[in-house]
């Protein structure tokens, strides 16, 4: 069964003739590929760990970088052959070469789990890792695709290693700012911010900045995004975090926190009014008005149900895809 997973590949159908030609062309390749596969799997089964077998794994992976068993075999050869025979310098050289080889595969297949996994394994076993280099690699990957979640996971992994020497939270926070400035719809960067901001406070990295001051600045920053594109859900999801995160809720005096909520409610309503003047209320503004009202209600006990219900009613029309959700919420 041909069970490849096709993503984003334009559909095409070959004519009979074209298919016949394609098959004829592939016949030879198949023969070679199968012979090579059989050869490598046999060597593996025999427990052969040597240079020539290692090179054969390269040959196969060059054609099929998703062949996880061959990646496994490759690692076994490294452990059972090279790590036994090479001195430290030799090993450093081998692992560096292997990292380069792995990077070449990334370039072609930035989303293959096996390739990422192999890299992590290499770093775990490398005698002398240059973590700075790895960080540069991630930046390059993010230049190509700022949302690549393998890249983000890998970045957090690298940082956790580098932080054995020195705290990098501030640097990482700035990295997210850079990514957000390049595109504020990059929720991956906003997400990472939600993980970094608490650390900034917990580790005492913000000198002369109170929780309230920080929140004020962050909200201002976010308003620029909200006004630039009121239809961007990333921004509003992040706003929800800012307004509900323990790091702010528990560290800002209650009265001041309620003031934040009131102010934000006004800002969002103003934006919605502008949208309404242009023809249509904005579903994210309305949703946020609901959320903030719920928060105020929870804090002050003030009954906000009227405004909440009113917004939910509007949402049923403004955002029909999710109408059942709003109807459910109205019932509560």
């Amino acid at each position, binding site marked *: 069964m041909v069970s490849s*997973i096709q*993503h*984003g590949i334009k559909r095409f159908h070959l004519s009979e003739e074209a298919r016949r030609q*394609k098959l004829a*062309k*592939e016949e*030879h*390749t198949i023969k*070679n*590929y199968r*012979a*090579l596969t059989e050869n490598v799997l046999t060597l593996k089964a025999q427990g052969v760990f040597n240079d*020539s077998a290692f*090179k*054969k794994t*390269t*040959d*196969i992976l*060059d*054609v099929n970088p998703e062949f996880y068993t061959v990646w496994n075999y490759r690692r076994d050869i490294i452990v059972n052959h090279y790590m036994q025979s090479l001195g430290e310098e030799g090993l450093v050289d081998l692992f560096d*070469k292997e990292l*380069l*080889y792995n*990077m*070449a595969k*990334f*370039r072609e297949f*930035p*989303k*293959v*789990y096996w390739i990422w996994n192999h890299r992590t394994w290499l770093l775990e076993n490398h005698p002398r890792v240059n973590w700075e280099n790895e960080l540069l*690699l991630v930046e*390059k*990957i993010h*230049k*190509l*695709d700022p*949302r*690549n979640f393998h890249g983000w996971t890998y970045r957090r992994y690298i940082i956790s290693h580098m932080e054995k020497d020195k705290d990098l939270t501030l640097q990482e926070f700035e990295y997210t700012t850079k990514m957000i*400035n*390049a*595109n*504020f*719809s990059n929720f991956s960067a906003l997400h990472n911010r939600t993980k970094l901001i608490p650390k900034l406070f917990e580790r005492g990295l913000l000198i002369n900045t109170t929780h309230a001051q920080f929140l004020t600045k962050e909200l201002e920053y976010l*308003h*620029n*995004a909200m*006004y*630039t*594109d*009121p239809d961007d859900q990333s921004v509003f999801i992040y706003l929800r975090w800012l307004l509900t995160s323990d790091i702010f809720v528990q560290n800002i005096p209650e009265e001041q926190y309620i003031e934040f909520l009131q102010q934000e409610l006004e800002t969002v309503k103003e*934006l919605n009014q*502008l949208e309404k003047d*242009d023809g249509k209320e904005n579903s994210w503004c309305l949703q946020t008005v609901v959320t903030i009202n719920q928060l105020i209600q929870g804090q002050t006990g003030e009954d906000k149900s009227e405004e909440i219900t009113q917004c939910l009613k509007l949402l049923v029309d403004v955002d029909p895809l999710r109408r059942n959700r709003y109807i459910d919420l109205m019932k509560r």
Partner: protein
Amino acid sequence: MSIRRPSMAERRSSMTQEGSLRPPVVPHLAGLEKPLPETVPEACDVVIAGTGLTESILAAALAWQGSSVLHIDANDYYGDTTATLTIDQLKTWVERVNKGEIKGYQDAVLYIPRGNEFKSKDFGIDLTPKVLFCKSDLLSLLVTARVYKYLEFLPLSSFHFFENDNFEKMTSTKQDIFTNQTLSLATKRSLMKFIKFSLDWESHPDVWSPYKDASIETFLQEQFKLEKAQIFELIFSIGLCNNNETHTPEALARIKRYLISYDVYGNFPVMYSKYGGAGEISQGFCRSAAVAGATYKLNTKLVSFDPKTKIAQLSDNSCVKINEQIIISPSQAPTDSKFLSKQNYEIQRLTVIVKKDCTQWFHDNESAAVVVFPSGSLESNNKQAVQAIIMGEGSGITAKGTCVWYMSTIETGKRGRDDLEAALKAMEGSILRESSDLDTQDYFDNANGMLNSVKLGQSFKDFVPKEKIQYILKFYYIQFTSIPHAGVVNPNLYRKNSVHVEDDVDAPDRGVIYSSLPSSEISYDGIVTASKILYEKVVGSDDDFFDVDFEDDDDEGSIANNLESAIAEDDDDDEHIVEPGAAPVEFAEDMEL
């Protein structure tokens, strides 16, 4: 110090250079490397005279369609009105223009100060400088016709516009708007709203049709409550309009053209071809035509054509029987021609090469920028915009440490020249300001202990430059065209001239179709349309315009080849040092379970 301009053939094997968008696979080329024929064929379907871009696309389209094409050019180089010329070629060109030998041009002036260390071949100056929108008909054609494989493209993301004696950086993308600290929240919203609207403006006639005959300026003011700075930016930089009176629908189409070109190949709206613009692309199409069997002959022009016998006499004393049509660029009209269409529109161009790298204007790692001087922004109180394309050494057209400034305007007569000179002066002042060695006395901010850097957007009214810009070349000319400014090519333009015996029996150009001289557009827009219209004149319809099924199985080939070499041997170091470059990639989500 200087870079020599490599020949096409040399460049073919050089593969990708950093930042280049050229794909790594270059097919075998036939065609232009073949020695040009001594004689021309006795008969052919179509003769095309002039190897400008429109004519070259036409030649390639006809050749691939199956017509036998003889493509000639009076010059000893390819490109004609869109040629890329060395300094020596430029000198000859100027002389010939002023002698009236090249039709459609006048008042050419070339100033080359003595005593510089450069060679003629260090430069490749475009007669018709252009930039290529990433989403445009020419780019699609370059891809379908596989002509992109002969070329290298570089990105251009810097568009500046001149206002209040300053160069402003553009705010045209979501991230620009988001990070711009001078815009109010409300303006951010309005601007973004307009940008979203303009991407799909055609389907919202309710919004724009009341302004159908109104200027874009009025529309933006009233409908989107934008302020003058943003409006001018939209009209002049993004829309590349000639003036603020451009009608709303036309301007919207131009604004959209820019915006939809963003993020097609990366974070930039336009590209340009390395080693010369339209000249390189023309040659690419000539190569394609040659691969498809067209015959090429330089140094050859039409002497006369007899529509009755359908025989064309050429300047090499040969005669060709033409089965279908003969198409001539107005620049190569035969002597004593009578039917040349009126070239009603004027374009003035001023090109200078300065001894400065001008990197201050370029985006990181780029080598080109566009600068626009909107109406009323210059000392000369210009009515029409002056548009400038700036290209540094990375563009492959100019020597190290130098920069080419291509300026143009549709203003006519003396005013046009004054506007161009005023623009030149503004650019000169700006680049001196940007690049001057800062006087630490003046600029050292003691409070911060930091050296203030002078940015493009800052005004220095009292700035007195200590140095002067050194020109390597200054080149001015007027070009005429039959294509209206910012307008669409009219099919009637390309009608066949009189074949009636009684009309000017002696005219050498009876029965020929004239193509047109390049338009005032600094983009390539309109050229493919022009080629298609001409194609239709020959073939009858443009349905099969470049409807060619090119074999293209590079991908499979590479897997198979990869494998071949893998199986053939076990040897040698497989150091796959591949740096993830800036190549744009479309990624899909992946999840296996």
